[in-house]
């Protein structure tokens, strides 16, 4: 259950990126790899708690899952169906060389400029 730590990290990183501390955030978009170990539902729950009383309090959380992609020495980039079997789906060669799927990233945030302008 490290989703609460992750949620706090999301909130503090977004706050640091705001043009002013009272800017209202309406949406936060994350990219979470299938190999990151994050459970989206748990992160959503933790985010609601972490965002309370911050400029993110009303911001919707959008989580995009990114697939596990390995680099097979023979077939190149290949997407895996799940994290259960690190073999190339084309040639069945064992391959642990992961190109993507571990990422936990804040992609972008949506700000409501009307609130900034009203200041």
């Amino acid at each position, binding site marked *: *259950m*490290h989703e609460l*730590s*992750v949620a706090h*990290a*999301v909130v503090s*990183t*977004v706050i640091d*990126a705001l043009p002013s501390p009272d800017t209202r955030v*309406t949406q936060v978009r*994350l990219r979470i790899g299938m*190999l*990151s*170990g*994050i459970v989206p539902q748990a992160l959503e729950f933790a985010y609601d708690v972490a965002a309370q009383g911050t400029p993110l309090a009303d911001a919707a959380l959008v989580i995009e899952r990114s697939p596990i992609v390995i680099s097979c020495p023979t077939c190149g980039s290949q997407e895996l169906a799940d*994290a*259960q*079997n*690190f*073999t190339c789906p084309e040639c069945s060669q*064992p*391959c*642990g060389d*992961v190109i993507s799927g*571990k*990422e*936990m*990233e*804040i*992609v*972008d*945030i*949506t*700000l*409501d*400029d*009307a609130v900034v302008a009203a200041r």
Partner: protein
Amino acid sequence: MTRIVEIRKGILEKNDLLATGLRARFDEAGVAVSNWVSSPGTGKTALLEALLTAAVERGTRVAALVGDCATDNDAQRLARSGAPVRQIVTESMCHLESDMISEHLEGWHLSELDLLIIENVGNLVCPTAYDLGEGTRVALLSVTEGEDKPAKYPQLFHSADLVVITKTDIGAAVEWDRDAAMRAIRSVNPVAPIIETSARTGAGVIELLDLLLLRSVAATHTHQLQEAP
């Protein structure tokens, strides 16, 4: 009016930056560092006790940081080996983060160490996401846990540089299916060395000690290659 601002930042960037700094410190000091991750009850502490004792006996300069949610029981137990040991009490946090490591290293001269072992909080999920600056990540699995554990927790076993099987002395009693376990490990991690150990009989302990000293160097090298532009 609304507008979208691109962030493109890793969520755990603060931890990762700190871990990168720690890794550079470890490299400069020439100390091999490993991060041990497993479920509670795998026998990390018992194996660590045997390993520290063996290391001290042969003159390897070793120290350990041990993470638990509460109590310093493990640190007290491990200190009997004669090696310097510090407890990190996480107060219910389910994993160690790199700021806890740098905080607890204060006062230790890293250049006077050959090997530093970080025993993470017993948990197969959360520690996986947190880089502690280690050269070698060790995933441990005991023969009492079920051979399919690597398949159930692929993130950890995939990320391991080294897989250690513990409690092999009671394998027969619990009908440990060694082949099934090896297959399960290999399906999520085709490359990591696998070492079979018993803290009770001492099997595999010296082999593990040698590999931790070597593997860290190898893994550190890989990290440097990965980080090179």
